[in-house]
């Protein structure tokens, strides 16, 4: 059986790995290489690193740091942030990433998803969707463009059609809040997509992961819980396993 995954998802900012809180303030987690080494030692299923210097500040993608991180990872590594061209994807994959995550370019140009998945394979193209609730309605949010009047489910369907291999779904409101995942959000996606959804934002305790997966998430991503609580990725997986969810222990 294919296993449900528990994935640390961290941000790269000013040469450090950080954790954001509601997309605004940041807390430093540590040096990229040592953090990657710790995750590797903890036997995590996968690691997602989003380079926010590149995505928000428009700097070049930190290929060297990505390479340093990849050197420590003997598990799948997803890198996102600042990818604007097929050449960027090539560089990131060549640095040792297994998948790339895109956000802004996917919003701007659906054809890009198609070109990227044709050239590198759908399995390595992760489309990231950030969601914010405005007047009780879920809207797509983008760090540079702000609120976009579009339903996240429809956007995800479009991405899937154009060749996305996975969706990384982040609730901006829950992100770093420790209020648990946005279960109402993941419920909207139930049985809507054929590609896996990684739900991100808000995990406080192992039970939150269980709820997310029971409500349709294929995988869960988190950061805060692994750095600022007593729980390890394995604790989350044990909770899932004890409740009949297939995980890799």
């Amino acid at each position, binding site marked *: 059986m294919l296993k449900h995954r528990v994935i640390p998802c961290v941000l790269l900012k000013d040469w450090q790995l950080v954790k954001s809180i509601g997309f605004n303030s940041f807390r430093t987690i540590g040096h990229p290489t040592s953090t990657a080494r710790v995750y590797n030692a903890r036997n995590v299923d996968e690691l997602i690193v989003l380079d926010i210097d590149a995505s928000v500040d428009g700097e070049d993608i930190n290929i060297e740091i990505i390479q340093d991180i990849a050197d420590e990872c003997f598990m799948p590594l997803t890198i996102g942030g600042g990818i604007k061209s097929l050449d960027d994807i090539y560089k990131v994959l*060549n640095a040792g990433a297994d998948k790339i995550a895109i956000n802004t370019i996917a919003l701007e140009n659906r054809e890009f998803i198609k070109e990227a998945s044709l050239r590198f394979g759908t399995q390595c193209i992760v489309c990231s969707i950030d969601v914010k609730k405005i007047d009780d309605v879920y809207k797509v949010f983008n760090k540079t463009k702000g609120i976009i009047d579009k339903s996240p489910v429809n956007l995800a369907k479009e991405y899937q059609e154009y060749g996305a291999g996975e969706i990384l779904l982040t609730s901006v409101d829950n992100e770093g809040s420790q209020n648990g995942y946005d279960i109402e959000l993941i419920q909207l996606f139930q049985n809507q997509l054929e590609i896996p959804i990684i739900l991100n934002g808000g995990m406080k305790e192992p039970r939150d992961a269980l709820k997310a997966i029971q409500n349709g998430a294929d995988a869960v991503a988190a950061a805060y819980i692994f750095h600022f609580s007593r729980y390890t990725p394995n604790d989350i997986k044990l909770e899932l396993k004890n409740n009949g969810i297939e995980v890799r222990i």
Partner: protein
Amino acid sequence: MGNLKSVQKAFQKIGCDVVISNNHHEIKEADKIILPGVGAFKDGMKHLQELGLIELLYEEIIVKKKLFLGICLGMQLLATKSYENGEVEGLNWIKASVTKFNFLQNIKLKIPHTGWNNIIYKMKTPLYKGILNNSDFYFVHSYYFKTEEDIILSTTEYGKEFISSINKENIYACQFHPEKSQKVGLKLLENFVNLKSEL
């Protein structure tokens, strides 16, 4: 692609000296040969052909019986033919074919088969020494390997039971990516490095 480097890195991690090469002389000098690969079957064969590696690999692996490890596409290429975008001839070292996953309508499984899945042992092998039956390995593939030959080391369940690793004499191959499979993956590579050639 990234895959080559990942494989190299994983071998380095276990202290094995490994070289990425398409140089005939270097390949002839090697004790063991690894063929990794992600991508399309046709491109894979085309590259081997253009680099003059088909005859060389045949000589080194089939004639001289050097220990060989095929990973992912590197396993599929051993087959007689693949049905990936038409019919493409493979190396034909094993009587096998490569076909796309195809599920009944009521089975909602995603293709490519991507993620951690367990392997079920079918035969005892030094390749899995110290690795528990049903261990999870990392898979990324849309096509799978089918053979009638009695060479199956393990199978894996994804909508159906498919072959996840094989061994025929000096030839070992796995559909999953040991270089991305954490501890068990590194252990497998270490086991491969420790295999002694029967010659």
